[in-house]
Structures are given as structure tokens and as C-alpha cells.
């Protein structure tokens, strides 16, 4: 019972702080807008060329935006040494992990939904029919990103050079998420039948399950000596 209570309170705390300070999500949205601008300047392309690369651009932008949010997730715990209080929770650390994953997932997912219309506008995409499948892809990939990212956020916040180490450790680990998300997004934007790219959705789901379980277990060793 305490376990679920701790999850609930962690999510509540992160959401309330975010609603009041708006630090994480505003910096994520603004950063992502800049990325979109730079991409659309770097590739001056027609709609056909855009279809080829847009899925990659979307996920590069989302991954880097996600890293900003994930980094903030535990660096806010450094104020007044709050991290120590989390480490001293008598309950297993897994509850804190799950709470943080849920909060991080919500931040990144909401930012993705805010940003996607920008891609549609700037790259002139046609997405009306595929919107539900795109949302499913965003959901699955973001779960995977937050599952691994939350673990590494907690780890890097306790070492030197943390801003550099978070992407260095996280990005190689989420290569499967990136490949699967890009391929599935490409399929959906092309209007391919679902069976042609459903294997990538399965891969995302498998990755999500495996890495949530493994990170849940390893989080204990990141937070506790």
C-alpha cells in the first residue's frame, strides 16, 4: 500500500512543481522549436524529399528534447539536498523509480503532442488519417525513452560532468527505440498498411517491458549504497 502511495506522491510532487515553475516543459518546447527551425533551414526540400527524412528529424528532435526533460527530473532533487531524503525512504526505491518514470513520461509525451503540429506545418505533412497510430508510436517510444532515461538521470545527477554523461550513456542504449520509432513513423506517414510496420510497434513494446523491469531492479543500486 505504501508502495503505491509513494508512486502517487512522487508524481503529484513533480506535476505540482512543474505547474508552478514551468521550468522543464517551457525549456523543452523552446529547445525543440529551435531544432525544428534549424532542420527546416538545413534541408530546403519538397514534400517528396521531406517524406524520406522527416521521421528521422522528428525523432532526433524528440530524443534531444527528452534528454533535457530527463536531466531536469533529478537535478531538481539537488535543491536543498532533497535527493538524500529520497535515498532515505524506508520503502524500496522501485516506487520512486515508477513515480519518476510516470512524471517524465507525461512531460515528454505532452511536449511531443505540442510539437507535432509544428512538424505538420513546417514540413507540410498530411497526417489526418494516421493520427491515432502515430500517437500509439509516440506513446510506446516515449515509455522506452523514459524507462531508461529516468535510471540514467538518477545516476548522472550524482556524478561529475552530469550534463555530458546523460546523453553519452543514454543514447547508445536507446538505439533500438530510435530505429523502431523512425521506421514505424515513416510507415505511418507514408500511409502504408499497418501490417507492413507492425513489427516495429512490437519491438517498441518488448523494449518497454524489458527495460522497465531491468531499470526498476537496477534503480535500487543507483539510489542506495
Amino acid at each position, binding site marked *: 500500500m505504501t508502495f503505491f502511495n509513494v508512486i502517487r506522491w512522487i508524481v503529484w510532487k513533480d506535476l505540482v512543481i512543474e505547474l508552478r515553475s514551468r521550468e522543464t516543459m517551457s525549456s523543452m518546447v523552446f529547445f525543440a522549436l529551435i531544432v525544428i527551425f534549424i532542420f527546416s533551414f538545413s534541408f530546403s526540400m519538397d514534400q517528396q524529399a521531406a517524406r524520406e527524412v522527416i521521421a528521422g528529424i522528428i525523432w532526433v528532435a524528440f530524443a534531444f528534447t527528452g534528454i533535457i526533460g530527463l536531466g531536469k527530473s533529478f537535478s531538481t532533487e539537488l535543491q536543498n539536498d532533497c535527493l538524500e531524503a529520497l535515498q532515505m525512504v524506508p520503502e524500496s526505491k522501485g516506487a520512486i523509480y515508477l513515480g519518476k518514470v510516470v512524471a517524465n513520461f507525461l512531460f515528454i509525451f505532452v511536449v511531443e503532442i505540442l510539437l507535432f503540429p509544428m512538424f505538420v506545418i513546417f514540413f507540410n505533412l498530411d497526417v489526418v488519417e494516421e493520427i491515432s497510430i502515430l500517437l500509439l508510436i509516440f506513446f510506446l517510444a516515449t515509455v522506452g525513452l523514459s524507462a*531508461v532515461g529516468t*535510471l540514467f538521470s538518477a*545516476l548522472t545527477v*550524482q*556524478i*561529475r*560532468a552530469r550534463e555530458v*554523461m546523460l546523453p*553519452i*550513456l543514454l543514447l*547508445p*542504449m536507446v*538505439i*533500438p527505440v530510435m*530505429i*523502431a520509432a523512425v*521506421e514505424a513513423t515513416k510507415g505511418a506517414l507514408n500511409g502504408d498498411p499497418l501490417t507492413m510496420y507492425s*513489427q*516495429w510497434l512490437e*519491438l517498441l513494446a*518488448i*523494449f518497454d517491458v*524489458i*527495460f522497465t523491469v*531491468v*531499470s526498476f531492479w*537496477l534503480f535500487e*543500486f*543507483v539510489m542506495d*549504497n
Partner: protein
Amino acid sequence: MIIHRVIRKVQRFQGWFGSGAALCLIAGLYIGLVDSPPDYYQGEVVRIMYVHVPLAHTSLFAYIVLSVGSMWYLWKRDPIVDNMCHAVAALGAIFTTLALATGMIWGKPTWNTWWTWDARLTSYSVMLLILISYLMLRTFIDDHEKEARYAAVLAILGLVDLPIIHFSVEWWRTLHQPQSFSMRGVSMSSEILIPLMCMSIGMSLLFSYMLMVRTQLLYLDRLLHAKKGRLLSQFHMSQSDS
């Protein structure tokens, strides 16, 4: 202490590993480079296989040792196991780099390209990335205990990730590139198998020998620093007293 007895035992055996490695490698290199005939399809180029394949196997073996050691460390918290993991990671990074380099040299004449995003190549290069970030991570932590713990977490996560990366790249490639590069034409006749076995055994022995020496070195280094720290604080104390 029991650990010192174990180390003395290892010291007695490690010489055998070293000389065994030298023997196997010299024999393997002689048979492979001089004695065996060139391959029917690939000609003399095939001889790099005798170095490349054992290197690749040994680096995979190194990663498995690293992840088993990391799990063992998290379970038992034995500092010398962490020294072993640290040694394995550094050696593994070197062996993986050499395996990738020899693979590229082999790939140029046979596949006509230095590099291709093949599943095996990709997962080996990601393995190298993880090993390098592992070694970087260790330098960014002051507390030995925390350093060992975080390094182990990273190694275990990498162990889970590498097969998934392998499979996802394999899927991805079947979509984008035809499977034109294969190990075509390398039939495993005994002429090839004998030097290859010699080199594989020799490389594993060499790796184990280096691992033993390096682990002891790191262990002694840690003891030395503990001693040095103690002496330094005693020195400061005697200074502040006088």
C-alpha cells in the same frame, strides 16, 4: 587475509597462461600465415581471419565476463571483483577496437567497403561505445564504492541492450539493404580450422593472462592509495599537533 592467498595462487598459475598464450599464438600465426594455403575465393586476404575472428570472439567473451562480474559485484560487494570488472572493461575496449579495425581491413578487399551497417558490426561498435562510456563514467566518481556500483549498473544494462540492438539492426537491414555480404566461400576445412583454433585458444589465454595481471595491479593500486591516504592524514595530524 584470504584474498591474498587467492592472489598468490593466481600468481603461481598465471605464468602458465602467459606461456601457453605465447605458444598457441606463435604456432597459430605460423600455420595460418605461412603453412596454410590461400583461400580459393579470397586468396591471401583470408589470412587476416586468423587474427580477426579470435579477436572478435575474445571481445564478446570479455563483455560476458564483465556483465557476470558486475552482477556478482552487486550481489557480494567484493572490491576485488570490481577491480576485475575495471580490468576487463579496459582490455575489452582494446580487443573490440582491434576486432573492428581488422574487420574493416578485411572488409575492404572482400566486400569492397570499409564499413556497412551490418547487425554484427553495429552491435560491436555499440559495445565499444558502451565500454568507453563505462571507462569514462568511472573517472567521474570520487567514491570508490559508488564508482563500482554505477559501473556495474551500466554494464548490466548494456548486456540486456546489446542483443536487442543486434536484432533491431538485423530487421532494419533486411528492409533497406539486400543481404549481399556473407561469409561466402570460407569453407571450414581442417587447413583453416587448425590455425583458427590455435589462435582462438591463444587469444583467450592471452586475454586471461592480461586480465589476471591487470586485476592484481588495480587491487594493489587501491591498497596503496588507502595506505597513502592514511599516511597523509597521520602526517597532517602530526603537523597540526606540533
